């Protein structure tokens, strides 16, 4: 429309918000919040506008923009959108908009907070839209900094530890990723950072080279996802981060890892993808079962949700490793659904924590009597999280497992125990918080307020809609996934 560079617009719109924020005195909190909400809202509307200009049935990238950036080394500002990135942008824009409301409970250094918040949005959207590996890496790193500060300044009691751990851990992964990217650049002919061109010449890379690069990239992405032995930064970061940061961390940042696999590792290094598939499936299996086990043992609500993320993201890896359309759809859908459901779960944890100032599961009990609406919401999203049919989590877990079953029978059979344990810890959590006799300490606990309800309702509707009619999103994803499968060379 009007020939606007929609993608650049959506990436850099939050920058405009940041610039405006610079000129607002820090005392005017309501103006600052208003500007931030407006920025995220416009970004979200832009994401809808992109959908209107986006042909979902057409595979490949659309609305591409390409500008020469550093021509000496063939680095371009190259962005484009396809079904895979679109779904992630939509998720990012939506969660940013909603978490912005949850940010109202932040009370100190509001201006700095929102500046970092919007900066984070720039990085996230940019990562999902970049088609140039260098640009991708830049955006990828941009997300680190604001998140570091969000955790380190507005976090909980062990915030410094968590923030530094998060930063160093993910940075360590990024270094390997950068090495991988550079190796790809120097081994392509002509030297290029363009993802599209690299995919086109993916058959030229020798097998050993592919394996090494895949492993390097794997570190970068796997730490972000996080895949089993690299997951320990996640619980710490989640527990210490303020609610909106947790939402974005779980909802979007983890997806960047999965997105990296889909967008870069798999199509560019198909031989390695096949070679490593069993190993990834094994890690996924461990992640699913082990994450669920550890979640079961938690007494901290937020930590439990954090470990459930480890378990749920295991399904993404399982679907990825399966290398078939069902598994891929399941994995990608699981990324999207996990963003929505776990985002909502973190919002709910935040709602509870704001009122009770504790997250100890054993400290609650019988809250259903006092806060029925909150309880309804919590039960709804918990059920979605445990994969109840009719809600979105089910479809993706089902497809991941179904895809995994085709490729790795034994692994999947063991993974299925994960969904049993998941039911266990989720219901155990519900039992400890909502059921049982009312702990008299919470007799006058305040009910969830309208702002918080309105924050959750869009997520609720999406969860339900995607659970009942997953075609809505699968139709957007399918062309992109088929293209990746074609690039890997798996017969569709």
């Amino acid at each position, binding site marked *: 429309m009007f020939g606007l560079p929609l993608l650049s617009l959506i990436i850099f719109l939050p920058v405009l918000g940041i610039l405006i924020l610079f000129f607002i005195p820090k005392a005017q909190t309501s103006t600052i919040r208003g500007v931030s909400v407006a920025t995220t809202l416009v970004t979200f509307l832009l994401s809808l506008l992109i959908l209107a200009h986006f042909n979902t049935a057409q595979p490949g990238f659309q609305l591409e923009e390409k500008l020469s950036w550093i021509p000496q080394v063939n680095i371009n500002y190259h962005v484009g959108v396809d079904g895979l990135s679109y779904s992630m942008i939509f998720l990012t824009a939506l969660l940013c908009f909603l978490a912005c409301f949850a940010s109202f409970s932040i009370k100190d250094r509001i201006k700095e907070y929102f500046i970092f918040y919007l900066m984070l949005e720039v990085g996230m959207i940019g990562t999902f839209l970049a088609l140039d590996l260098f640009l991708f890496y830049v955006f990828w790193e941009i997300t680190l900094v604001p998140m570091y500060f969000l955790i380190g300044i507005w976090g909980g009691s062990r915030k410094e530890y968590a923030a530094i751990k998060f930063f160093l851990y993910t940075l360590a992964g990024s270094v390997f990723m950068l090495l991988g990217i550079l190796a790809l650049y120097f081994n392509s002919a002509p030297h290029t950072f363009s993802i599209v061109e690299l995919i086109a010449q993916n058959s030229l890379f020798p097998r050993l080279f592919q394996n090494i690069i895949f492993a390097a990239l794997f570190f970068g992405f796997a730490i972000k996802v996080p895949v089993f032995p690299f997951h320990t930064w996640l619980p710490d970061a989640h527990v210490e981060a303020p609610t909106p940061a947790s939402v974005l961390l779980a909802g979007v940042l983890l997806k960047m890892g999965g997105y990296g696999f889909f967008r870069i590792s798999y199509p560019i290094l198909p031989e390695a993808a096949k070679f490593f598939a069993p190993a990834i499936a094994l890690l996924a299996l461990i992640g699913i079962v082990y994450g669920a086990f550890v979640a079961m043992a938690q007494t901290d609500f937020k930590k439990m949700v954090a470990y459930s993320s480890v378990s749920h993201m295991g399904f993404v890896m399982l679907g990825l490793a399966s290398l078939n359309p069902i598994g891929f759809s399941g994995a990608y859908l699981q990324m999207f659904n996990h963003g929505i459901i776990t985002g909502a779960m973190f919002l709910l944890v935040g709602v509870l924590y704001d009122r009770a100032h504790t997250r100890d599961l054993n400290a609650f009990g019988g809250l259903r009597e006092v806060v029925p609406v909150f309880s309804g919401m919590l039960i709804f999203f918990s*059920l979605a999280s445990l994969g109840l049919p009719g809600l979105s989590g089910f479809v993706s877990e089902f497809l991941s497992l*179904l895809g995994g079953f085709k490729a790795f029978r034994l692994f999947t059979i063991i993974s299925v125990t994960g969904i049993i344990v998941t039911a266990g810890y989720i219901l155990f959590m519900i039992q400890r918080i909502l059921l049982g006799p009312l702990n008299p300490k919470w007799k006058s606990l305040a009910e969830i307020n309208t702002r918080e309800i309105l924050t959750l309702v869009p997520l609720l509707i999406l969860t339900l809609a995607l659970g009942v009619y997953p075609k809505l999103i699968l139709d957007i994803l399918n062309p992109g996934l088929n293209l990746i499968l074609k690039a890997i060379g798996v017969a569709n």
Partner: protein
Amino acid sequence: MVNAAYSLALLPVVGFIVNIFFGSKLKLKGALFSIACIAGSFLCACLLLRHVIAGNSIEQSATWFTCGKYSFSAGLVIDQLTAIMLIVVTLVSLLVQIYSIGYLHGEKNSTRFFAFISLFTFSMLGLVLADNLILVYVFWELVGLCSYLLISYWYNKPSAALAGKKAFITNRIGDAGFFLGIATLFYYLGTANFREIAEKLHHGGFDPHIITIAGILLFCGAIGKSAQFPLHVWLPDAMEGPTPASALIHAATMVAAGVYLTVRSYSVFSAGNFSLQFVSYIGIITSLLAASIALVQNDIKKILAYSTISQLGLMMVALGVGGYTAGVFHLMTHAFFKALLFLCAGAVIHNTGVQDIRQMGGLFGKMKITASTCFIACLAIAGVPPFSGFWSKDEILLAAFNHNKVLYGLSSLVAFMTAFYMFRLYILTFTGKPRDPHLHPHESPKVMTWPLIILASLSAVSGLIGSPLTNHWFSHFIYFHPEHHIEVNYLVMYSSIAVGLLGIAMAWLFYKACPNIPKALAENYKPIYNLLLNKYYIDEIYDTVIVRPFLALTRFSFSFDSKIIDGSVNGTATVTIWISTIKAWIDKYIVDGLVNLTASMVGAIGIVLRRLQSGFIQNYILLIFTSVIIIVLLKLI
């Protein structure tokens, strides 16, 4: 007609939505609305039944979503089996809801109950209507959810909360197997649609081992949902829920879903080479186990729960020995009389406030309608002709007789025990003199008794449709292999009557004529008595063998995670710091030593020059200009 099917399924959803969102305002009106919705569903079900009896069937399917070349469809199928199930579900649901108005009278927020019941009805109808395994799986879990919600309806009671959780997780274990079964079939046959599966299997050419494994995996789901051994433990605990919910979910409909699934996918079972035996073995083990436990239980609902498990086991036996029709038939009659029994028990509990049958007694005089309907239900379950249970049980025994004599003998034993414990219950509850003077029972209101009367009449006569009197109409209506000629085996029939009557007589002897016998037996065979009373210690065994090690394992995982994995991360950091410390030492004393030497010389000079570093800006300016002058002078010279 398709519209009827849609409105049949969607009306309860309307009831659910209205009640869950506006229930707190609507109160009784919400309940009535929900009943109206179910009544509408029931009418639709009747219409559909007529349509099906006329020889039609409906099948409709649409693409749900696609992944690459794989397409998942959603659709409904209405054939004879579905039509019967629809009638059973909607009718029992309708009656239970009417009954619940009376039962939950005065309960705070009772609309929540109606909302959940409506949701359950929808899910159950969806389960029955679904035309493929994946869709069945969806609704399968949804009914499990409703069961969870209704069991922990009184959420303040910790035991109710625990029971709900136990039910859900136990079911999930079965569901995991169910899922794997679906996956196996999906990839092996390329479809999950029941009709297509049957067609493909009919053409043959499949590895029977894989089909057997698939069948057994599917049956895992049924084991969980229908509370078969070894996953039966949740059903007795589920009695923590309100009794009407138990009647609908844990007696009549949901627990029968396992049987329904086995029936629906019967082609898979019969194509395998061991799966049917497996079904019958599980069925008979469950049946014997539950019936023997029921002999000595004292909680009225627990007895009924074990009875339900036992009857479901019998249905499985029927299916396992090829009695396809018999299984479905018993499912239907059982739904009526077991729902009736539960509702009667509910009326008793509602009016007396106790659940222990040893505290009851002599209620017949106070609650005539309840007692007489309960009597009819007991006759039906005990297998006394012409009540419904007789005809269906007779068919099961006949099928077992034709197939395997040992199973036949054991099934007869189950029938005997059933008759015994049911009449033990009846005699202790309704006859004799009141044992507890504090109880002041009275008859329930009409809104509760009418459903009892309707169900009682159904329990009495519904068996006739499968009896020789109607020329086995039912077996011509629902069948796996069409059977043209059905012979009546009088040996089986008479022995079945005899077994039932023997059980009744023994109950009368034990609890009416010589009340000392049970006590003496319990004294003399104390280990056996305790074993039965404690349900073979299965819960305890599970607790020690599975639950505790599992929880220990979770704690171990967590400490493993925080100590070893996270420890290695932190360890890396620590090691880095150590290395830095060593490097710092080297830096400080060796590398820096040289530097320090230089530095100390510089320092000596610095002591002199530090006076220049006064920190006063004007001093600096002065120095600057002094330097300028010096430079200029140097230049000039």
